[in-house]
């Protein structure tokens, strides 16, 4: 059969369960100490750097990286468990998660030794926040359209242009960004983009916050005016960033963070419906739990296949497509089911507040990190349709 999809039946090994208990105990301590409120997903994560430091002390950032760079040489599956426990607890991971998931692995692969020794151990200690500079005004998911220029100069590059929708740029220490180093060729319209490491303290960078409809201010516009980046801050192949960027996407697209972003409303629904829901409530919960479980098993499977050195590119794209649509619909389904709950029930206020927030953020879930349309294009290619 031409289009066989492969999902190895991966079960998390016992050491993952031990780790899971450690993470839960840690999170319970943090909650008890008032570091964050798990029932308050709408808070700004940027205020809690101490939490990042403590997660780093536990060895839960850069878990799979080499020890020589401050990593812990643990498995991809162990990292999976930490990610899902943090996500489900609504822990404030924003400060370190981008570096942990994306930026660190890019540096590991493409940066020189001096940069790796400088930055990676600090990421692992939870001291460094990264932003990703991909989108530009009028480009978005269309990376080819990126115009921000890197012009070769003595000993480095001069950057001019604007990045936008850059999450956490206002608190970031560094940005990994894609800039245009030459024009695309007729043969290859993907040619001409290069990946750079940007120290956000470099003169010439202005960060302008953009308020979101959710009430949060995580997005930014970042303007570069004659920003000088030294030669060794160009990462990997000059003009060849397209390939670098896309080859890493399987890791970024199939994780538990891709279907658990609105999970909290399901917990609160179960709490509000109580131990003896009517048939409608029971069936509603049952379907949502079945869908969640099925997706999670698929995500664990992809994690296991990545861990085993396989390349489940289509399967990973599918996990993000199905996962983000699910987490987007979840608050709406919960709203349907919650309509019949006695509003005097004790946690109804929590549920309503959380629902309002989840419904506000839901539309972005199928946009961030690659839109549904882009993902379906990747899946279609994997099926041999283009």
């Amino acid at each position: 059969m031409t289009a066989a999809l492969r999902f190895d039946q991966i079960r998390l090994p016992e050491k993952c369960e031990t780790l899971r208990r450690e993470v839960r105990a840690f999170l319970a301590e943090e909650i008890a100490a008032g570091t964050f409120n798990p029932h308050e997903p709408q808070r700004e994560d940027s205020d809690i750097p101490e939490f990042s430091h403590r997660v780093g002390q536990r060895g839960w950032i850069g878990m799979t990286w080499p020890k020589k760079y401050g990593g812990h040489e643990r498995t991809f599956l162990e990292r999976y468990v930490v990610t899902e426990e943090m996500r489900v607890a609504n822990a404030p991971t924003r400060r370190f998660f981008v570096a942990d998931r994306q930026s660190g692995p890019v540096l590991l692969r493409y940066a020189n030794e001096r940069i790796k020794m400088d930055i990676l151990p600090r990421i692992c200690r939870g001291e460094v926040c990264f932003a990703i500079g991909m989108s530009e005004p009028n480009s978005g998911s269309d990376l080819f359209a990126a115009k921000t220029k890197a012009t070769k100069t003595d000993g480095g590059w001069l950057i001019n242009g604007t990045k936008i929708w850059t999450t956490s740029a206002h608190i970031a220490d560094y940005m990994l960004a894609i800039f245009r180093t030459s024009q695309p060729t007729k043969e290859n319209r993907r040619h001409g983009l290069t990946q750079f490491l940007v120290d956000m303290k470099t003169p010439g960078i202005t960060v302008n916050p953009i308020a979101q409809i959710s009430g949060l201010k995580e997005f930014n516009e970042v303007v570069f005016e004659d920003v000088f980046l030294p030669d060794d801050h160009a990462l990997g192949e000059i003009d060849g960033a397209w390939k670098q960027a896309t080859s890493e996407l399987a890791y970024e697209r199939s994780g538990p963070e891709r279907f658990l972003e609105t999970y909290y409303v399901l917990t609160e629904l179960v709490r509000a419906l109580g131990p003896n829901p009517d048939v409608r409530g029971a069936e509603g919960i049952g379907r949502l739990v079945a869908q969640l479980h099925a997706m999670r098993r698929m995500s664990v499977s992809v994690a296991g296949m990545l861990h085993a050195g396989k390349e489940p590119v289509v399967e990973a794209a599918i996990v993000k497509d199905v996962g983000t649509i699910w987490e987007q619909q979840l608050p709406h389904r919960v709203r349907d089911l919650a309509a019949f709950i006695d509003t005097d029930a004790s946690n109804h206020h929590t549920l309503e507040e959380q629902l309002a927030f989840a419904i506000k953020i839901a539309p972005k879930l199928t946009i961030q990190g690659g839109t549904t349309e882009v993902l379906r294009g990747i899946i279609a290619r994997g099926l041999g349709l283009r």
Partner: protein
Amino acid sequence: MTDNIVAETAERIFTDLADAQSINSAANDGWKSTLWTALSDAGLPLSWVPEDCNGAGVSLADGFSVAGSAGRFAVSIPLVETMLAGWLLSQAGLPSPSGKMTVAPARPQDRMTVNADGTVSGRARGIPFASDVEYIAVIASGAQGSMIALVEAASCRIEAGENLGNDASDTVTFNNVKPVSIKPAPAGTRPTSLMLMGATLRSLQIAGALETMLDITVRYANERVAFEKQISKFQAVQHNLAKLAGEVAVAVSAAGSAADSVADSTSFDDGVFLEVAAAKIRCAEAAEKSAAIAHQVHGAIGFSMEHILHRYTLRALAWRDDFGQESYWATELGKFVAARGADELWPLVASR
């Protein structure tokens, strides 16, 4: 495609004797007996019966692979049902006869009773292939708890019915039927156990049928030209097929996970219940969405009896009804989750 010799054997026999195109254009049902003979000669119908009871003594996991393969070929003879009946009988240490079998009940609402004199009574609806088989394996409740019995189909009243795929799905009335053999079910084996095993098999079959639907739909989109282009080059069609692939992926993964759980467990515990219920719910949902997309891409030709698509779409939809519809499992799962409470939900999901 498959990674064990039993499933490879099944796959080879299906390829040789159950090719959808040949079956679809066959003048009569003669292919069914040829196929059954080949499967029986290979020992597949009694896969799960121990060797000392004349079975093949195959592992649960290998037998589940056969069910997946049967789904990929939309096999419409009682292979999976006979396997399930053999499994049920062997739970009580009862030997299996040769020949075709099915099981009762096949719906969670139907209850069979063992009377004081050891006869069996009850009415079971939607029994797959009841009018095509010689024996029915039954799990029934009696004064001493659950009993497992082997009953001759000829001693029951069978009202013929059909499922969506035009396979026999009959109402069977057991009126003080004297079983061929009967024994107490072992501790832990209840009517629910049969529903869980049956739901696992149907989930695997649905997932298998969906895999083939994806395959033939992708192939068709690459062949069919409209508006001077292969329709696979239209973005709207590509996105529909990507959605189809997503649903197939979820079904394959969920059914595989449930089968893996059952094969790995010594009892039908809470974890197995979650896995099987979730698989049946999700595979049924996937069947609904996938059938719609596969037919949409095929256009009118896929709606003709002449085309093989219906063999897969209609059976995938029909199999939703056996061993608990998705709304039944969803309600049971929802009650279970609610009773445990909100804070136990994530630990439950994460334990799988």
